């Protein structure tokens, strides 16, 4: 496979995942900001921070922050490479540049309605926010579905999926990075309904609310939530799940190519670390330190993949 094709697939996977995750993030902010007694400013600020693409909005020193500014920046802004609009446009441009590596179904899913966000302004977007976010999730789901049912299971598929998984691990980690203080045990004493909402918001942003119930049965606890998002290998947005899957795809790739690449060392080390570490230990060593370290590792993994496969 051409290196350029692999690169395009990998990034297409990342863009589509980022569009999807950003939609979920905005959804969480929208919901939190509407809660009685919430600090609307703070909520939108943490959304901006978790997105990682709007530092000027995330700055706590900065002056008032409106929902419309966040929506403009994260949903519509063509200048922001991580806005939903930019992600969908870039994914389509990537797809178009490697049309032969996509199936017809995948292309149609990418191509269908890509102009929809074209000239929309922030006010219109804000008015229709829930349906726009739904729409975004549908677009990405349609694309994912098309890939699942039509793409050959070979290197192209592996690169596409690994791009999505790297991005997903990164998004979960960044959300934790912004919200980690909510999960620190001491917030227990601050107590009250507020924290309950904060905890559930973290689960909501990762679409994990119901699933969490199924796994942990009872209450929301900070370590339960952290355990779920970091260590639970059954939850598809957890760091452990993402890394295990990436590691498996790297094995598949190695089998196909007849040689093991250097990224596998990075992936496997993380998988093993997560396997032998319990959540108590993680908290003991510092949740924040772990999260920062994992963000760096994920960046390195992405770099190692591109280096090993010549893109």
């Amino acid at each position, binding site marked *: 496979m051409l290196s350029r094709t692999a690169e395009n697939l990998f990034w297409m996977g990342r863009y589509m995942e980022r569009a999807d995750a950003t939609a979920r993030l905005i959804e969480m902010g929208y919901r939190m900001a509407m809660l009685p007694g919430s600090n609307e400013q703070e909520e939108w600020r943490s959304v901006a921070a978790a997105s990682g693409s709007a530092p000027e909005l995330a700055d706590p020193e900065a002056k008032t922050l409106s929902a419309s500014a966040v929506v403009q920046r994260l949903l519509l802004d063509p200048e922001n490479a991580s806005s939903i609009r930019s992600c969908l446009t870039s994914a389509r*441009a990537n797809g178009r*540049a490697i049309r032969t590596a996509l199936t017809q179904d995948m*292309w149609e899913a990418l191509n269908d309605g890509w102009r929809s966000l074209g000239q929309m302004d922030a006010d219109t977007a804000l008015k229709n926010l829930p349906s726009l976010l739904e729409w975004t999730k549908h677009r990405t789901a349609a694309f994912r579905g098309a890939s699942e049912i039509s793409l050959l299971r070979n290197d192209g598929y592996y690169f596409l999926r690994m791009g999505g998984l790297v991005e997903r691990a990164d998004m979960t980690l960044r959300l934790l990075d912004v919200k980690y203080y909510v999960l620190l045990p001491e917030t227990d004493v601050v107590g009250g309904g507020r924290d309950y909402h904060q905890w559930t918001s973290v689960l909501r942003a990762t679409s994990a609310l119901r699933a969490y119930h199924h796994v942990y049965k009872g209450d929301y606890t900070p370590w339960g939530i952290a355990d779920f998002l970091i260590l639970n290998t059954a939850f598809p947005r957890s760091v452990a799940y993402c890394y295990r899957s990436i590691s498996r795809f790297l094995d598949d790739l190695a089998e196909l190519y007849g040689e093991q690449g250097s990224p596998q060392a990075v992936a496997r080390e993380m998988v093993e670390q997560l396997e032998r570490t319990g959540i108590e230990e993680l908290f003991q060593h510092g949740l924040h330190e772990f999260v920062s370290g994992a963000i760096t590792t994920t960046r390195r993994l992405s770099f190692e993949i591109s280096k090993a496969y010549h893109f």
Partner: protein
Amino acid sequence: MYNEMFADDHAVRGPYEKVAEWINATGVDLLNLRQSEAEAIFRKIGITFAVYGEGADPERLIPFDLIPRVFGAAEWRKLSRGIKQRSRALNAFLYDVYHRGEIMRAGVVPEELVYQNEAFLPEMVGVDPPGKVYSHIVGVDIVRTDGDRFQVLEDNCRTPSGVSYMLENREIMMRMFPQLFKAGIVEAVDSYPGLLKKTLQEVAPIKCDDDPTVVLLTPGSLNSAYYEHSFLADLMGIELVEPQDLFVEKGLCWMRTTLGPQRVDVIYRRIDDTYIDPLAFKTDSLLGVPGIFDVYRSGGVTLCSAPGAGVADDKAIYVFVPDMIKFYLGEKPILENVQTWRCAEPDHCKYVIDNLKDLVVKRVHGSGGYGMLIGPHAARKEIEAFRAKIKANPSEFIAQPTLDLSTAPILGSEGVEERHVDFRPYCLVGKDIRLTPGGLTRVALKKGSLVVNSSQGGGVKDTWILAE
């Protein structure tokens, strides 16, 4: 004017019987509905065409007209023989041009037309392309001016585009009206990609000692014909590469892959001569694959079409194609040329200057219907402007009579209407000469217009060759 569907007494002509029956049975309303559905499908699939310099929409659709254009089996037999004959002669001419130049020595084609032609590449002199083939895909633009009269408007020896429309137009017709094709009265066109791949494999370079690896080289996704490039690569199951994916090392050509360098043997390039190799041709260009021309010359890779093939499809050379057929093949040309005045000749030029209002004037190197004058439709001012241009630079222009192009039925705003059409088949030249029964019919959608170019308001149709 020859109406392809109706004879003068309004009777439906033989080849169109099935189409007429279908139009009547379906009704104009339903046809209109299907037509807009077809457009939606084209948009969704992404079959688009960019028009340079228009800015607005970089991915525009070429209008598709639902009513097929039909050739009877006997008509096709003649056309097919004529097209193959022409393709053979054009390739023989190219070999001659870059070798002994017999046809110039014999005084049949004027030397300066060839050697001073912009498309003539001195670097190609003495190079032997595999199978002596220069133009592997010859697109011949043909118009019909009477019942049994077909004339060639021009030849395209470099990288004729549009074949994806031949395939997609058929695909969409079969999707919407499968019953039309059930009886097998229409020859299939889907053999084209397979034949193209076979043709390309047949011209593997001498240094290739294994199954040749064929790739399609595109300038990239911003190119107007990008859809076609990806479509063909896909149907042939070959890599679609951009110049930056290729490089030259150890006298061979390689592509960058996830497994490291992989050797490339045959390149179907959809990129102009001057952009192939910045070292050999356009030194100020950043595009292309540095050093690839040397690899080509030494038999390490085959470029299709060969660099310099454009010298055969120049409008000034066109005039001599019937002579080439006689000279190289000893045959009588099956397809006629259109009468052409070359303004480089003083007496031709005088005639042209004096009769501009009746003539079509074209630039020798132009394409796409840009910068041409259609005398009978032009304003006086425009004619005067052309007169001045021709006088200033006569050898830049040729002129032809305004042709009475045949018309085919289209689905217009007032039901079935007639519009002028032309036809471009795609002839493949490898070890064998192959021709898929079909081609691209372009139609001037504007009433009375003779310009079929998609950049100037032309549309496309499915083209049926009826089975014997």
